[in-house]
């Protein structure tokens, strides 16, 4: 029998981090304002009080320094978990992430590992100022040496953060910040699935919808609306953006013959592009319509008052579903 607890994602992450720190005293937290403040989203709340300021460190204000020193700590045998305060502030650390963190295992001919997790609250829907609503996953998913994941539910958040910390490879852990607050059931006993797996969030037969993070709830909403109109839609939760678990996607597409991918990030050269290209190649004879992408526009994330126009919503997803069905 399993112990279910209803938690918002922020608290599920907090519980997952606490568990990871209890299980292994090499696990450290580093970041800006993660100590007494508990992080601007309170994901690390109470951890410094419980584990002390040597294991939960408020660092100097420098992202490259945070990731660069985390690398050194990993070389020393620690397992640092870095918090980047907002998606748009990961770029000062981009050099350390792409030229160092992602490549050091390879540079050492596979003889050292880099168990560093970089947590990034990402995505829109919170009406914030510039740099606080972006979806930078493509930059990381394109970078060999990194693993990239994003939970869409409190249950996955609780387990995936622990699995990411257990991984001996660097993991970019993308937290859909607009999903921090809604509650969901967390099974504290069992994860149910491996870290790098695509999950079926809802079964359907006519069209497959695929997304990750905050988009999954939008897709489920679209599936409900479609159902009202008599269309049976399957919804897949990508969960792992690198590597991508293609089998469930191909399986679903072979069944439905139609795929619509939704993402908040600008569509050009995106994770959605990759999946669309690969599915179009591998399911060539199964597709009854081209793979359609519903993405953020190829423009910077707009001022808050325009965000609802920028972000794909259920209506825009359904418009694509209609187009797919029209083929």
């Amino acid at each position: 029998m399993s112990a279910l607890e209803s938690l918002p994602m922020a608290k599920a992450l907090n519980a997952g981090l606490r568990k990871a720190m209890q299980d292994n005293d090499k696990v450290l937290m580093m970041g800006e304002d993660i100590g007494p403040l508990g992080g601007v989203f309170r994901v690390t709340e109470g951890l410094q009080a419980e584990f002390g300021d040597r294991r939960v460190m408020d660092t100097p204000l420098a992202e490259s320094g945070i990731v660069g020193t985390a690398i050194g700590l990993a070389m020393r045998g620690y397992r640092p978990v870095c918090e980047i305060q907002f998606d748009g502030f990961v770029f000062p650390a981009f050099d350390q992430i792409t030229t160092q963190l992602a490549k050091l295992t390879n540079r050492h001919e596979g003889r050292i590992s880099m168990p560093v997790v970089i947590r990034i609250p990402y995505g829109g829907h919170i009406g914030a100022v510039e740099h606080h609503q972006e979806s930078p996953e493509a930059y990381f998913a394109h970078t060999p040496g990194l693993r990239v994941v994003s939970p869409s539910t409190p249950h996955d958040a609780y387990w995936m953060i622990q699995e990411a910390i257990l991984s001996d490879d660097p993991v970019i852990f993308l937290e859909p910040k607009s999903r921090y607050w809604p509650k969901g059931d967390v099974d504290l006993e069992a994860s149910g699935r491996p870290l790098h797996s695509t999950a079926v969030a809802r079964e359907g037969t006519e069209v497959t919808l695929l997304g990750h993070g905050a988009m999954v709830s939008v897709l489920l909403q679209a599936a409900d609306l479609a159902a009202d109109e008599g269309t049976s839609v399957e919804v897949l939760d990508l969960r792992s953006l690198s590597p991508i678990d293609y089998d469930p996607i191909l399986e679903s597409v072979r069944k439905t013959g139609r795929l619509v991918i939704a993402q908040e990030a600008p569509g050009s050269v995106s994770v959605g592009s990759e999946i669309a290209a690969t599915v179009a190649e591998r399911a060539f004879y199964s597709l009854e319509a081209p793979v359609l992408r519903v993405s953020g526009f190829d423009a910077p994330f707009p001022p808050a008052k325009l965000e609802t126009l920028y972000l794909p919503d259920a209506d825009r997803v359904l418009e694509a579903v209609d187009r797919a069905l029209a083929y």
Partner: protein
Amino acid sequence: MSYTDATLQLLSPAGALVESDATAPYLPFVEKLTDDELREFHRVMVLTRAFDLEGTNLQRQGQMGIWVPSLGQEAAQVGSGFAMRPQDHIFPSYREHAVGIIRGLDVINIVRLFRGLTHGGWVPEENGNFHIYTMVLGSHTLHATGYAMGVTLDGKAGTGNPDTDEAVITYFGDGSTSQGDVNEALVFAASYQTPELFFLQNNQWAISVPVSRQSRTPLYLRAGGFGIPGIQIDGNDVLISYAASRKFLDETRAGDGPRFIEALTYRMGAHTSSDDPSKYRTDEETAHWAALDPISRFESYLRSRGEGDDFFRDVATEAADFSEDIRRRTVELGVPPVSDMFDNVYSEPHPQLAEQKLWLEGYEAAYAQGGVGE
């Protein structure tokens, strides 16, 4: 952290003029100030605080997504703001509302930014060379340095004429000093001997992180290591802020190379409206700094010079009207056109984006639902 021996101060917390060997080089700048100019210092500090309180209220009432207060830092900003000359360029962080007011910025544009109508809000040319706010900490200090390199290339500094020679000033916080970009800005500024003043407002905190985490040594010493003269001033003393900035700006515009000022001040309010200072700092600390309030200190000074109640009452009235005006215009602000999302990205035509704009327009036309307001 509190004042060190090195901290320059022209006004004691009680509001008395400090005359000493240390202040001797700075007093002359203050002695040149007319009564009207001194009144202006007070007036802008009060207007700024009123604007700040109004901003906090408007945000609480949902009229803005976020508010970034300057409460407590008025003296550092007003002193340095009045030290600039018309031709100077300012690269602020995101808290320098007082400087904007001094440079003639219509502050409703700051409201537009924090209301979520724009990522910027104005262009420097039309607003006293006051550049837009930057959210990525420290990155603007390199823009300021590059701009100052351009001033040198144009031969617009170092001619010896302070009325035409240009200087650049950039504002940043104690936390930002840890960013690589700020240090690279110091490298480039020293290397190209830019006409530039680095103005650090050390308000003791980077959100919840105390300045002691960023540096164990006074931050004004950082500049010396790059070969840039630096001093530490009492940032709650509008007179030293003015005098030191005036002196350094005129030295740097004269071609003497970059300068650095660390102004010790305090963020009396929350970091932003989203912040909860009770989680990380004590009431004692806040009380300590409240006693050093820049406005009341300068008011005592003005009164000691014979300034009467009428003036202070008039300023208070003006401030109330100013707030009222901001409030009225804020609630009247409309939403930006959808085209803003596409048309502002590139200066030249971009087929891909034009296509997406067209698609959205068609989509919006077809589907009544969705979009703004929802």
